[in-house]
């Protein structure tokens, strides 16, 4: 995600999410500048889908994205660290057991 601008005359920044194929999630592709949402979608089309990379576009003004602090990643994700029992491979079951 790009940094927010402080220049008041600059068009606001938008984050662009592209659905590459029907049925899949929208994924963050990058960002662009645009004066409004409609222009943001058109600009996103021109910048990010020139080679048919998408079937759907979402744009969100960057200032509305709240992100976790990279510096606090360790404590944020720490709770999942020692819980290997959330994975199916944790359970040792007989080989003859099928369909599970």
């Amino acid at each position, binding site marked *: 995600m790009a940094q927010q601008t402080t220049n008041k005359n600059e068009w606001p920044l938008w984050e662009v999410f592209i659905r590459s194929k029907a049925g899949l999630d929208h994924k963050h592709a990058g960002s662009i500048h645009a004066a409004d949402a409609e222009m943001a979608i058109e600009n996103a089309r021109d910048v990010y889908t020139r080679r048919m990379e998408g079937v759907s576009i979402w744009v969100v003004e960057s200032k509305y994205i709240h992100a976790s602090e990279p510096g606090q990643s360790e404590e944020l994700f720490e709770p999942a660290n020692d819980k290997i029992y*959330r994975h199916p491979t944790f359970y040792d079951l007989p080989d003859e057991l099928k369909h599970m």
Partner: protein
Amino acid sequence: MTVDSLQEHFDDKVKREVTIEPRDWMPDDYRKTLLRQISQHAHSEIVGMLPEGNWITRAPNLRRKAVLLAKVQDEAGHGLYLYSAAETLGSSRDEMMEQLHSGKAKYSSIFNYPSLTWADMGAIGWLVDGAAIMNQVPLCRASYGPYARAMVRVCKEESFHQRQGFEIMLTLSNGTEVQKKLAQDALNRWWWPSIMMFGPPDDNSPNTEQSMRWRIKRISNDELRQRFIDVTVEQAKILGLTPPDKDLKWNEATGHYDFGAINWDEFWNVVKGNGPCNKERLEARKKAWEEGEWVREAALAYSKKRSERNNKISAKAA
């Protein structure tokens, strides 16, 4: 576009297996059917936390306790994925809560049975989650995108649920006589309700045909039920336990297990609210909702106060 051509466009997409997304035009009945099914599914995840929550404090050791906690936590998460998918169809969370609490919306009947012993934690994981997975895997290809994507996430997380349940059953089956009896007793009580989880038989399931045409549903109730019985009977052999059905017999000609008559009167009776725990489950949900009221209010009040303060600061700066 006229309604006719919109309908045609929709039908064509479904036929070509192109997912329907929230902003696409869809027939009213398709929307209604999905809303009913997805919210019912979400409610099942949330109410489904109760029978297992009952045993968290009494798990036999710390490992079992941590695993059971993780499983119940997953069910909460699954409920949330599904509520969010339902919200893309235009329903609000509060509206869905209201429908659950008033009894207007249903949830899976299996959760109206009590969890009487620790062995029930094994039987629920093995049978109830096993049946749920059997049901949910085809839903990963449902025609409505947000539902299908939620189901992919759910299925991925669900596989440990069944394995931990089977592990409990295996430990009990290899244990003392008393432990083995507990395991058999749990199987006896959960077997038939699990088989009923697939819903009424095909010839008495009014919504199936339309849902299959819309590709919300891919495989009929009876076919899924048969698949479940075929794999589960084999798994029971590994445990040395016997499903409580004297008519259960391998049929060489069909390549499937034959099984005894299902007590559909019991099923409909529980659906109507007369199961052993219907009242208790709904009351527990309502109590949780009411007792959480002050938390919801406090969080909103705090957020409002904070934004007012920020507005004041930026007004001063300007």
